[in-house]
Structure formats: C-alpha cells, structure tokens
C-alpha cells in the first residue's frame, strides 16, 4: 500500500528534481519553445513544497486537490493547466482515502493522464508530455497485471517514460509553441516530456 507520507515524499522528490534540472529544462525549451519551462515548473513546485510544509492532509484527494490548484495558480503557461489538471484528476480518482493499493494508484495516474488529454488534446507522437506519460502508464499497467511488485512496476514505468522522452527527439511538434517551428522542431527533446519523465522517476524512487 502507498501511504499519504509516501505520496508527499513523491511530490517533494519531484520538486527537488525539477529544481536540480531547472536550467536543463529551460535550455531544452530555448531550442523549441520560449525558454521558461524550468523556471515555471520550479516556481510551481516550490509553491507545492511550501503548501506541504504549511499543512497536513487527511486524504489523498485533499492532498492532490491542493497540489493541482497550487500549480494552476503559480505556473502559468500551458504547463500550469496541464500539470494542475493531472494532479486534480489524480486526487478526484483517489478520493477520500489515506492510502492507495497499486491498482488504485495506477487508476489515479490514468485519470491524471485523461485530464491532460481533455485539457490539451494531445495525441501520441505530437511531441508533448503525453509521449512520456502514456507509455509509462501502459508499462505500469502491464507489469501490475502480470503480477509484478509495485517497485518493479514503477521501475518499468520510469524506464518507459525515459524511452518516451528520448523518442520525442526525432518527432515533429504538433502542439504548443514548438509546433510553430515545423520541421525545425525535429532533433530536439521535448521539455514537457522531460519534466514528466522526472515525475515518473520520482515515483519509482519513493512510492514502492
């Protein structure tokens, strides 16, 4: 079972990764976007950490509602509504419980992905965060249904997210500002897929 404390650790670990990779994320965004993904995500996750420091939560639903609203209110750009919606839907799916079994965790992550799809309407191969998150959740589901432990399943998910992130390099962007570049977006790694891979990697380190 994944406890509220583990979920808080996941968020803190993601915040630390984003802070550490802030300049790298911004450098990726300079190549095909507007050079602010690292700064925006770091600002948003710092606000999330401040909220985690300031209060405790009695349910997974309440925790992720707070996280989602904090990101929507502090990140701006497209990443704010996308990551915000991901966590809001995660919280709604998890509900008023204090822990999640692996299936409930996978279901909440899937609900988060569906929220991202509803908000941004990405498709596979558009060169977005979807290209890291979707294969990660497919790998998670496949591993869990074949009887793997949560730790192994999350490791497989993280590996799939990294592969998905790397696969964005040759893609032609069809969403967001990178899409304005047409052919010139080819050859660059998508910043959103990169931060999403950090989120899944943080889950693999903290949730098992």
């Amino acid at each position, binding site marked *: 079972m994944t406890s509220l404390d583990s979920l808080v650790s996941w968020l803190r670990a993601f915040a630390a990764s984003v802070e550490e990779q802030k300049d790298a994320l*911004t450098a990726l965004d*300079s190549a*095909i*976007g*507007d*050079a*602010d993904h690292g*700064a*925006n995500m770091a*600002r948003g996750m710092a606000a999330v950490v401040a909220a985690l420091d300031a209060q405790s939560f009695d349910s997974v639903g309440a925790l992720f509602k707070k996280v989602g609203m904090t990101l*929507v*209110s*502090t*990140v*701006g*750009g*497209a*990443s*704010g*509504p*996308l990551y915000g919606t991901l966590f809001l839907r995660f919280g709604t799916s998890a509900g008023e419980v204090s822990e999640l079994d692996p299936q409930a965790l996978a279901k909440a992550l899937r609900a988060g992905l569906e929220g991202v799809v509803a*908000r*941004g309407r990405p498709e596979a191969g558009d060169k977005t965060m979807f290209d890291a998150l979707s294969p990660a959740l497919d790998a998670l589901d496949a591993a869990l249904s074949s009887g793997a432990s949560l730790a192994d399943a999350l490791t497989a998910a993280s590996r799939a997210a990294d592969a998905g992130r790397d696969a964005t390099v040759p893609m*032609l962007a*069809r*969403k*967001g*500002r990178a*899409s*304005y*570049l*047409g052919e*010139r977006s080819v050859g660059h790694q998508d910043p959103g897929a990169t931060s999403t891979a950090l989120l899944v990697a943080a889950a693999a380190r903290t949730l098992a």
Partner: protein
Amino acid sequence: MKKLINDPDSVVAEALRGMALAHPELRVDHENRIVFRGDAPVRGKVGLVSGGGSGHEPMHGGFVGPGMLDAACAGEVFTSPVPDQMVAATQGVDGGAGVLHIVKNYTGDVMNFEMAAELVETEVATVVVDDDVAVQDSLYTAGRRGVGTTVLLEKIVGAAAEQGRPLAEVADLARKVNDRGRSMGMALTSCTVPAAGQPTFDLPEDEMEIGIGIHGEPGRRRVPLAPAREIAEMLVEPVLSDLDFTSAPVICFVNGMGASPLLELYLMYGEVAALLEKAGVRVARSLVGPYITSLDMAGCSVTLLRADDDLLALWDAPVRTPGLRWGA
C-alpha cells in the same frame, strides 16, 4: 545581460509598481497583477479583459483605459497569466453587461482563460486572435499565433463597448476584426528573457529570421540579411496572398519588436506603403511604433486590417490609455 533591472525574478512586479505611479488614473492590483481602468466596473458596459505574458509592453496593460480595455492581466515574462488573475479581472470589470475575454492564440493563454471562464458566474464571451500568416499548416500546429491584429482589435472593440453595444455584438465584432486581420513578423536579433540571462537564440550578424512570433521563438526560416525594401517584400507578400485587401479601406500597422528605433520603423512603413500602392491596396489609416513587442528584440511586423466604415469610425473614436491616446 545588460538590463535596467534589480532582480530578474521581480521584473514584472516592479514594472507594475512603476506603472501605477506613472498612471494614477489606472488602478493596479499588485497581488493579482492586474491593471484596471480607474473607474471599473463601468455600469451597463461590456467589460473587456485581456492579458498574456509580460514582455510585450505596451500590450496589454498599456491599453487599459476609456475606449480600450477595462483590465489586463500580466503573466510572468512570456508566460500566460493564471486563471486566478483572469477570474479577479473578470469580476472586477463586470458592470452587469457581461465580459469579453480577448485571448491571443497560444496554448497556455487559451487553456488558462478557458479554466477562468469555467470558474466565474459572469457571462463571458471569448475571442481568440490568430492572425499570424507565418504559421501555415494549421492542421499540424497549435494554429496561427495571435500577434499585431490584437492591438487593432482591442482599440476597435474597446470603442464599440464604450458606445454601449451589447456583449453578443461586441463579441461578433471582435471575431470580424480577427477574421480580417493578417500579420507577418521578422527579427534582426534575439531577445533576452531576464530570468534566462542570455539570448533565446543565436542570430549571426549577417542573418535574420523571417516569420517569428513575439516570444523569441525562432521563425520559419533564416535568411541572409537584406535591405529594408526586400524585407518589406518578405513581410507584405505573404500577407497579401493570404487575404484580399484590394477592395476595402485598410488599416496598416508597422510594429516595432522592441529594440528597433522609430527611424527604422518609419523607413519600413515607407517601403510597405509603396508595395501596397503597387498592389492596389488603399491605406485609410496607419499606426507605426512599438505596440506589441518582444522585450529587446530588434525587428518589426506588418499587420493589415481590411476595414469598413464602421471599423474606421471605431478606430477614430476617442481613446485614453498609456499606449494609445487620441481624441480624448
């Protein structure tokens, strides 16, 4: 990076502080980073709310005042504002006749305004401005970007709202202006985002970018630097081939990207006007200057708007804002 700043992280907040002091006729909500008309909400008038990333000044905060916007939300540099800001702005300008959101077509701006419209009880209509002909293949992109037409739209629609026209009519007018406006931009240099500290892209001394947006995103193609006459052709030709501008009076707007002096912008206007005359386009009104900028980028954009008598009368109507001011 050499800039007139104290701290890269507080540029927007400090600029708003200065703006409030320079323009006591406006009311600035520093917590939510919103510039309001001093007398907002105006009872019975449709409220106009726009907003976007900072770095495009005078747009949008400099276009707040009688005859133009009622409120403008300022995001971080080149980053959309967040829904909380748009909710506060919408509630603050709601005079009982509904509110129009004027949104430039960027993924983040559209999503954040969409979330805000879902959160308020006020009747909200939305126009998404997408006038940039540099983005060609709309099916495979986020669609055309909102650029120069935004300035003309905010002026024209602002005058219509000031006349007391109802929300549905104001929203239709906004869509009509967007449908009839086209723009194309170019850059001589990159811009430097304060938080990044270095130019967003490298552009050698002897090259320029054609088809840029307003966020330092690289353009469609990079070509050798050319004389102004040829640059004017590269901007005017795609605009004229996208829409017929010959059979109506046209508003011609030559915009500076931030670092190009007015001397060069007027020189460019001369080249653009000559090309338009040759193409049989009748320019009825003009606007020349830095109105929708990209920080310290050097370069310009050309916007043409196919007007009619109503649009010209609304263009000529009084306006009193920090960025545009006439007849009032």
